[in-house]
């Protein structure tokens, strides 16, 4: 199974549109395709594909909870916590501050009395939709207010890869969130090929530079998808492509028909664009 990612630092440049068009193109070639929406903060592929999310499975993360019966109030837990998430005053029970806790486990590993237990918290959900023969959509969705979404992406991708192995898929297409921090890095890891989607504006050019720098660091071969290719000014995009030894391999023209197809969940008929 080949893993292909559609990414881009800037939002709204067409990452999801390209990922879905690519999926349809492969389906036309009689391939088995899994599309995995790793934009767990704002997943949209299911909307663009007119789906209602199905087969929900919770994604857990573990956080500490104190067993007061076992705690001897030694305060070691607050000393090992580098996130300053444990507040302790001599002679008192330690207090956990959930907003600062990363769930790293330092406290429960080092408590000499086994007084810190792990509490499973639902931080997100993953969904599987079988859209039609040979086409599945996996969607990740974080619980609102969850700050660190990288671990959710990791779990969602795991479910996609497991399904891919089970059904013997040809392609796993990963649709990442915008940006370049941990949730995007988790989505990109282990891709065989990355498409960086951008648009021919100074914003698109700057952001393309950021994503190409990131994929270079991650050692992932990356090609460029230029959306709205006939608008704006592509000179800067071409310069950045040269600088990073990449190339523009797909061009999608600005098209009102494409916008309508995006809004109404009819992208399949636009597959000719790529």
């Amino acid at each position, binding site marked *: 199974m080949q893993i292909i990612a559609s990414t881009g630092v800037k939002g709204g440049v067409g990452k999801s549109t390209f990922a879905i068009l690519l999926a349809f193109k492969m389906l036309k070639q009689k391939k088995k395709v899994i599309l995995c929406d790793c934009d767990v903060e704002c997943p949209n592929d299911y909307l663009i594909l007119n789906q209602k999310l199905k087969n929900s499975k919770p994604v857990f993360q573990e956080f500490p909870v104190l067993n007061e019966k076992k705690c001897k109030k030694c305060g070691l837990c607050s000393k090992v916590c580098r996130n300053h998430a444990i507040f302790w005053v001599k002679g008192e029970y330690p207090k956990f501050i959930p907003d600062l806790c990363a769930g790293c486990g330092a406290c429960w590993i080092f408590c000499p009395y086994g007084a810190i237990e792990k509490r499973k918290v639902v931080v997100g959900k993953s969904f599987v939709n079988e859209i039609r023969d040979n086409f599945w959509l996996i969607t990740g969705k974080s619980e609102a207010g969850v700050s660190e979404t990288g671990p959710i992406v990791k779990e969602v991708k795991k479910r996609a890869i497991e399904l891919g192995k089970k059904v013997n898929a040809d392609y796993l297409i990963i649709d990442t969130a915008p940006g370049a921090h941990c949730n995007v890095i988790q989505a990109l890891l282990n891709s065989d090929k990355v498409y960086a989607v951008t648009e021919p504006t100074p914003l698109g050019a700057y*952001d393309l530079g950021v994503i190409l720098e990131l994929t270079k660091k991650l050692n992932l071969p990356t090609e460029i998808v230029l959306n709205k290719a006939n608008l704006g000014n592509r000179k800067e995009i071409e310069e950045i492509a040269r600088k990073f030894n990449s190339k523009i391999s797909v061009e999608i023209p600005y098209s009102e028909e494409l916008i309508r197809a995006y809004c109404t969940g009819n992208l399949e008929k636009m597959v000719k664009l790529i």
Partner: protein
Amino acid sequence: MKIVIASGKGGVGKSMLTSALALLFSKEKKIVACDCDVDAPNLGLWLGITEYDIIEKISTSEKAFIDKKKCVGCEKCKEVCPTGAIEIKENGEVKINHLLCEGCGVCQLVCPKGAIKIKAVKNGEIRINTTKYNFPLISGKLYPGESGSGKIVEELKRKAEEFKYEIAIFDSPAGIGCPVIASVRGSDFAILITEPTPSGFSDLNRILEIVNHFQIPYGIVINKWDINPMLSRKIEKWSKEKFLGKISYDKKVIDCIVNLKPITKSDSKVVNEINRIFDNFRDVLEKEIK
């Protein structure tokens, strides 16, 4: 007064609207603008800035470093690492993948030989500019592959406090995760911008959950309303008294950014629409203050 512009979905016009509101406010108030999108800092471009006057490197992230001379290869660190950042190479050498390491320090604590140290890393920078329009722009950058974006946003907002202002305007990144929460938290008012697509509307609901969680008063703006008038009307109705106005889709907006010209200096019809949103917004603010 702290105002944040957020959307959930990317590319719906946050930075465009932020730049326009900053220019309009700056005519009558002392303001500071702050680009909280440290992955894709683009607000400067909307204000015609391509180079930065002052750059301060900062460190809001820590990583584990291994001393190969002291390591005996017991692999205890690998067993406890919560992010899977520790790999054992074929020759048995321990390698820490800094792309995954979050610097929690559990490995350092379990290492029987004291071979692991946690050190601060320079993960980003803060940049300060005085714009042509006489207000400061504070922006930041997270270096590619580093972590700690939310903490850089917090640093930016602290920097903004060093300036005397009546209005601070924050341009949030896309999403609803850590840097967005850092951008939105502590704001007095949120302007939520969306586009009339099923994705735009769904993401508006996502960001609303965050804004409501912090109990921040808000208003809603629809951008590119005419790409889907039916859904636009639905969102407008749904927004009720929170609706601040709508902006048309105009290719002249793209010409502006290509030529690094502020949107308010354009002859596009969106200028009048933004002026109306600005007036509505000021009325809402007055009511909020009362």
